[in-house]
């Protein structure tokens, strides 16, 4: 699960300048930024789950999961929640940003081949999961049935709506299950928390892998539910986040035990996390 090949040039701490070529409003507090190098290429070629350091020159840098990659671009879905992301949300198309990566390990796309997949996302937690979902669709024959369970606070907080309602349900052997905590727009979807809906949907654990990303409290209760449903810890994959500065395992702060999340993570199975100090 490791990939230490940095593709951003000679010095991994110096960003490449990229153009913002498209900005999509996902929710009132989340936007997706599409970036491309000045010569029209994707800044680097990440595998699902990998990270990129995204910077607004003069403001700051932050680590984000790469939500999607195209032929000649990368997408980052970014929620507004601090000084840097506030400034990023003020950007317009044509602005230049710094991008460096790819960092970290990847979702175990090989080990999951031949299995049914259950992708669970909560809120902005769908952003990292989306890279794997897209990969699975690009290599559709390699994976069995695909279920996507996504929950958000309310209808207006659902990200990637076009994927959720149009693109993904149209894929072969794929079901998308959407739930919101409270139904303020009388949307035609399930209402309730993700863990409860997960139990209601009663997925069978046989030959199935689960990718689970979302707020810590959702992860905790989903894990309880999955255990109840008979899933073992090595069937459940998640991502961790910590504050990061360098992205290459040097600056120190993102460690959990002797692992660095930027380098050895962000992807871990729940079985792997059990062997680490519970400090996240």
């Amino acid at each position, binding site marked *: 699960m490791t990939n230490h090949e940095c593709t951003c040039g000679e010095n991994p701490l110096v960003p490449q300048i990229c153009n913002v070529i498209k900005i999509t409003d996902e929710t009132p507090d989340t936007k997706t930024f599409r970036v491309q190098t000045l010569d029209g290429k994707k800044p680097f070629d990440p595998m699902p789950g990998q990270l990129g350091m995204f910077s607004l020159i003069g403001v700051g840098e932050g680590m984000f999961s790469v939500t999607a990659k195209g032929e000649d671009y990368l997408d980052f879905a970014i929620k507004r929640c601090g000084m840097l992301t506030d400034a990023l949300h003020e950007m317009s198309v044509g602005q230049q940003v*710094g991008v460096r990566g790819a960092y970290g390990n990847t979702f175990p796309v090989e080990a999951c081949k031949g299995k049914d997949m259950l992708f669970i996302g909560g809120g902005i937690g769908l952003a990292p999961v989306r890279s794997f979902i897209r990969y699975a669709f690009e290599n559709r024959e390699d994976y069995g049935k695909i279920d996507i369970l996504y929950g958000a606070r309310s209808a207006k907080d659902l990200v990637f709506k076009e994927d959720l309602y149009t693109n993904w349900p149209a894929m072969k052997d794929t079901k998308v299950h959407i739930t919101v905590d409270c139904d303020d727009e009388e949307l035609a979807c399930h209402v309730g928390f993700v863990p409860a809906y997960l139990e209601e949907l009663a997925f069978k654990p046989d030959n199935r892998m689960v990718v689970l990303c979302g707020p810590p409290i959702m992860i905790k209760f989903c894990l309880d539910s999955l255990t109840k449903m008979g899933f073992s810890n090595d069937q459940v994959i998640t991502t961790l986040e910590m504050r990061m500065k360098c992205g290459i395992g040097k600056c120190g702060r993102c460690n959990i035990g002797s692992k660095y999340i930027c380098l050895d993570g962000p992807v871990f199975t729940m079985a792997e996390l059990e062997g680490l100090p519970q400090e996240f």
Partner: protein
Amino acid sequence: MKLAKNKLQQAFDLMAKEANLLVPMKIEGVTKFAPWGAEGELAMDAVNTLLPPKDALFPQTEKMYKYKTRLTQVESLEEIKETDKQIIFGIRSCDIHSIDCMDEVFLTRGYVDSFYSRKKENLTTVAIGCTKVLPTCFCDSMGLNPVAAPTADVQLNDLGDYYAVKAQTEKGEALVNLLKPLLEEGDGEAAALECTLKVNMDGVQKKLMNVKMFESDIWQETAQKCIGCGTCTYVCPTCYCFDIEGKECGNEGYKFRCWDSCMFSEYTRMAGGHNPRPSKKERVRNRFLHKLAYFEDRYGKGSLCVGCGRCVADCPVDLDITMFIDKVGALKEAGSND
């Protein structure tokens, strides 16, 4: 070979012509490695300096790249490369080993840190064997020898009126060659030296790596008196954590990195406010575990504590890592509270 002590200044002049020469100096009451010629007095007998020499390789602040912007466009972005030759003269075994530890961090595990590696390539170290120990020295308990630093480029040992001079690497041979006009034939063995402060690391790393240990009461007890001042990380020769920040004026600016400290709450505080290490208990726990367990687990090169004793001597509330080691050593098993 040997160098007469009365030729030391001549040797400094010779070396200072070739490189930026850092020697132990006492400047305004603070002992540290400073450029030869700086205002202050030479402090060859400082044993270990108050400030470690880590800033020769890992400056307290270091510019990384500079840029120019125009409105929302980036006009230029250029990496800043420092390639000055440096010599550290009079460095002790503990500090030499701290460089070995930093090499592991900055030069291995998938990425080479170019800022560090350029400095390392251009650095020659001249170690000097200790002839006395401070009450806080415990390097020999951490597997080091106060009179021999095998990874230094040149090893000096005090023979009274002379220093025995031994090149240990190619860089060291080049330096000894440079000093040749001042050197005399001769040799001598350094007298063995033992630290008076002893700790026993047997089994400590293994106990600390046990996940049960993470929830032990020992952390609350140990961290209680910590005031979170960060002195330990500042004076520690192996504390390498850094922050990356920027400075901008008008349409140009630069990005720099600077020493950071795991003792500060900002260090791990995430956007949105969540902090996985919210109090000093978690922060002290992480620091001691990093020094005594995690580093060994990750790099397999022993402990990240080199036994220099600076944090023991300088902590304003006497939070003493050697007492902590003893306490863990005395635990019946990992995670027990007695």
